[in-house]
């Protein structure tokens, strides 16, 4: 199919040239690539801030920074990593690029809206930067808890508004995907023929659509509070700060699922391909995605067990929290069972996915400890929490993101990276990761609170150890990312299907042409039909067949 020019060579609308062919494009693939660029930029900034924080914590005495600087840094680290990296990363990059192809469509349903949401994302990012220089770096933590966020003199108003805009961007993306999945599937693709990644994006999109407006309006009220003194969250005016927390977590807990569900989708794609075997329990995985999206929206107050909330609420939300653990467990069991009697090839994406399963399990199990009401009281707002959510967010979503990046990199750019460097990077990253975040559990159990720029001297050895881990981790990450970039220096291009996948994106050239499909795509009655795939590959006489 080499005669078909790739989408890089075909501007999507009119006769746009140069940079405008990117900035004014409505092609979902180009928009996905643009997201990739900007999100990686923010990710790097977030990493640098994170390593600065950990460096400061390595020593008790020679202080790298003042308390105020430290507070600003962890606020920025949180805001950037959550709102500018993890929430948009997988839906906006992989969702944009792959979702239409996976369902056999040529674009998303609202291409212009898609571009708009990219611009809103950029605007939110720029606004966040502007807020730093206008009024000083916000120092509230990414949660913007009232009444501190109402009282502080730093530039909270603008950064809160930036988050509001990012929220709209995320919401529009969700809206677009839901409509796309409903209306643009190939006619013979029923709901049970959807690839699991698409399913997970579908579940995620609903959460994005319905939960984001809640935090939107909550943050608006914080802005009104700061500008006009409305008093709705200000206890000195009769407001109830706990209601802010309720509203905030009504979004921000489901947001955890916005982050992890698509990650699970990626893992569900990778396991079958490298085990050369159908995913185990397709329907169970689909059902658990939807269950996580729904039940996960009703557990928000487990962030508030020590906030002064009623004991009845603690009872209810603790129970629901344990219930939401079950669909996640089901997914893990299904992934592991997929390997059973497979023919496994540990390529870099699978290595990432295997590490994901381990790290995500650690994150999940430590989450159980926090779901339990009594233990939660002790570890709430300590380093235990910091360890836990980094295991879930970075070890989970972050690793799945990297796994997806290695899985679909050839599809994105038509270039293959060096495997050895990828393995080395992954191992370094994982080892560093465990060294870095495992000690935090112990620190937390010993009572080291989070958001402290200093700590009790006896905790220094462990903090120092964690700091070393952080450097190894970042080292591994650098190796991984540079290795990916180095792939551009290679000349040979990649066949349409380097891994032997069964979903539709492997039936289009790498990189795909503007209209995605060279031939009318054929929808399998079962999306992970590997025996059929083998048959195809044999009949085409080539293990890596060049497009269909």
């Amino acid at each position, binding site marked *: 199919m080499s005669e078909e020019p790739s989408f890089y060579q075909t501007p999507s609308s009119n006769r746009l040239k140069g940079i405008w062919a990117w900035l004014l494009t409505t092609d979902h693939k180009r928009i996905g690539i643009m997201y990739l660029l900007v999100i990686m930029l923010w990710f790097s900034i977030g990493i640098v801030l994170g390593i600065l924080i950990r460096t400061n914590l390595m020593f008790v005495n020679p202080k790298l920074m003042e308390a105020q600087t430290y507070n600003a840094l962890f606020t920025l680290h949180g805001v950037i990593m959550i709102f500018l990296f993890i929430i948009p990363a997988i839906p906006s990059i992989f969702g944009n690029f792959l979702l239409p192809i996976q369902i056999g469509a040529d674009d998303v349903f609202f291409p212009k809206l898609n571009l708009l949401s990219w611009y809103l994302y950029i605007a939110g990012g720029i606004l966040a930067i502007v807020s730093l220089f206008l009024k000083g770096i916000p120092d509230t933590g990414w949660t913007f*808890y009232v*009444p501190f966020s109402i009282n502080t003199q730093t530039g909270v108003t603008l950064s809160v508004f930036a988050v509001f805009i990012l929220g709209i961007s995320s919401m529009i993306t969700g809206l677009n995907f839901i409509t796309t999945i409903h209306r643009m599937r190939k006619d013979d693709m029923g709901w049970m023929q959807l690839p699991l990644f698409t399913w997970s994006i579908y579940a995620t999109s609903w959460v994005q659509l319905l939960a984001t407006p809640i935090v939107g309006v909550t943050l608006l009220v914080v802005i009104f509070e700061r500008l006009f003194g409305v008093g709705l969250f200000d206890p000195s005016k009769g407001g109830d700060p706990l209601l802010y927390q309720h509203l905030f977590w009504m979004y921000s807990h489901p947001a955890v699922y916005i982050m992890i569900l698509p990650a699970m989708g990626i893992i569900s794609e990778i396991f079958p391909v490298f085990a050369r075997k159908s995913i185990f329990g397709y329907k169970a995985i689909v059902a658990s995605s939807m269950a996580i999206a729904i039940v996960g929206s009703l557990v928000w107050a487990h962030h508030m067990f020590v906030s002064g909330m009623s004991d009845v609420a603690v009872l209810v939300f603790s129970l629901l929290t344990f219930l939401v653990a079950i669909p996640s467990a089901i997914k893990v069991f299904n992934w592991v069972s997929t390997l059973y009697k497979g023919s496994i090839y540990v390529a870099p994406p699978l290595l990432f996915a295997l590490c994901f399963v381990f790290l995500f399990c650690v994150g999940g199990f430590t989450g159980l400890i926090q779901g339990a009401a009594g233990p939660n009281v002790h570890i709430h707002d300590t380093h235990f929490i910091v360890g836990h959510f980094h295991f879930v967010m970075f070890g989970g979503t972050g690793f799945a993101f990297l796994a997806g990046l290695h899985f679909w990199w050839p599809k994105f750019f038509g270039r293959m990276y060096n495997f050895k460097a990828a393995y080395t990077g992954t191992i370094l990253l994982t080892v560093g990761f465990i060294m870095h975040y495992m000690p935090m559990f112990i620190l937390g159990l010993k009572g080291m609170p989070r958001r402290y720029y200093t700590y009790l001297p006896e905790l220094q050895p462990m903090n120092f150890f964690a700091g070393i881990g952080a450097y190894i981790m970042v080292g591994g990450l650098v190796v991984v990312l540079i290795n990916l970039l180095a792939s551009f220096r290679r000349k040979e291009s990649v066949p349409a299907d380097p891994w032997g996948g069964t979903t539709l994106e492997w039936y289009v050239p790498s990189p795909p042409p503007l209209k995605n499909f060279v031939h009318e795509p054929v929808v399998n009655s079962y999306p992970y039909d590997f025996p059929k795939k083998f048959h195809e590959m044999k009949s085409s006489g080539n293990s890596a067949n060049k497009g269909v």
Partner: protein
Amino acid sequence: MGNAVKYVDDAFIYIIVFSLFLLVVITATMVYFVIKYRASKHPEPSDIRTNWKIELIWTVIPTIIALGMFYIGWQSYIGLRTVPPDAIEIDVTGMQYAWVFRYPNNKESESVLIVPQGKPIKLNITSLDVLHSLFIPAFRIKMDAIKNMKTYTWFYADKIGNYTIFCTEYCGVGHADMTGMLRIVTESEYSEWLNKK
């Protein structure tokens, strides 16, 4: 009565043991499969798509385990919330950036909480400004301090000694310095201190 700490620790151990066990089983199985069914040794994959019996089993069993964890966690929580009737009540006020303790005879102390050994202590907590959270790791207790709202927590002062108090709800530039000291002293020492001036 000093059992609240024990209950919490038991819940910790119960959950951690179960979790570790499952973590090891899952990881070991995964690694075992990867090695056993590697492509070079096992070139022909089988086509297993689902098995409803297994799905059902591994839905029901984790549910039971999870509900067990919930129950034991909840029991320990009740221990943290049920104040014995003979508790000494002390008012705690959080402010940027100090803790103030007011004793039954209206005596006040800042950043140092002194209580007699062998007594349950109830802390009635509030805040003067933003949110704070009183955290005494040794007694597994933590409770937010909110302006115009009263919250409480309690602990059983069983052993003489000094224990650190932290603020764990981020409250501003002095957050990390908003620490205090809990001193558990003998009954006589306490009453002597309490009635001094």
